[in-house]
């Protein structure tokens, strides 16, 4: 009797196992995994600091006046009746700009500005601003030096005096 019972039980056990396998196969799901990268560039704020103001130095206008061009290295050239004494030389404006290493940035200069005589109202115009470099990027240290020159229009027999004014330079990431 015992062996017969055992045989039946064994058969039932095997049948159950087979049925379970079939159910698993029909309920099988598949998945597809795709790996995605996410990234971001966290950038330092941009800052500009003035090192030197722009100086056209001492100028004698003469009867006709003319133009005084200040280069980005601070040297001056003149036209017309202008004389440039060396006693008071010119100096370019200069700045250091700080930001994200190796990043390009943009720098804007005014198209023109006006100098006004101290204790007076006479004016002279400064225009044709130029910069060195002419396109801008930070070095690997996040620093960039810029020099700015321009051209001053001097009238004939321009009233003597100290003429001053101010202009803005704006920097931003492109």
């Amino acid at each position: 009797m015992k062996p017969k019972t055992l045989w039946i039980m064994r058969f039932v056990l095997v049948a159950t196992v087979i049925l379970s396998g079939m159910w698993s196969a029909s309920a099988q799901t598949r998945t597809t995994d795709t790996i995605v990268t996410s990234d971001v560039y966290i950038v330092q704020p941009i800052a500009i600091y003035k090192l030197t103001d722009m100086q056209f130095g001492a100028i004698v206008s003469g009867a006709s006046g003319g133009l005084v061009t200040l280069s980005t290295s601070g040297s001056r050239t003149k036209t017309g009746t202008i004389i440039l004494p060396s006693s008071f030389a010119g100096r370019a404006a200069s700045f250091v700009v700080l930001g994200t290493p190796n990043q390009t940035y943009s720098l804007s200069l005014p198209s023109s500005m006006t100098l006004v005589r101290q204790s007076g109202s006479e004016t002279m115009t400064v225009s044709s601003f130029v910069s060195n470099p002419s396109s801008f990027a930070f070095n690997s240290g996040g620093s960039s030096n810029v020099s700015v020159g321009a051209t001053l229009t001097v009238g004939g027999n321009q009233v003597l005096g100290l003429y001053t004014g101010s202009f803005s330079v704006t920097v931003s990431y492109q």
Partner: protein
Amino acid sequence: MSVDVIQGIRVTKTSNLRFGPMIPGTTDGTVALDVTGSRTQTGNLILLTSSSVPFSAANFTMLGTPSITYSITLPSSVTLTRQGGAETIVVNSFVSSPSGNGSLDTAGTGTLAVGGTLTVPASQTPGYYSGQFTVTLTYQ
């Protein structure tokens, strides 16, 4: 002559989840990249635009059994680590289009877009941060 037999769904990624360049604000902020690839921010961080540093949603094309349906599993968050450092920044609130479930068309093709939200603390160290996450499609 060759034949490419596809079983199930083949996914091809066409762009990663890229947040682009930005400057942290004076307060903590967030940048949400939606499924169309548009960025919106909270806080006073500054979003920059640079042709050499693009931003985009993650985009995928799919090819497989016509009209097959699938469910999409996105991570709850992913941590990005600064290149050359150990600082981290977190992306969460993942979204997708389609959302939850989708299906391929009668030609067996489909597309998927994934966006997410980046949290940008005011003090976040500048640098390039990256990380990886998995998008899982489940289907019969």
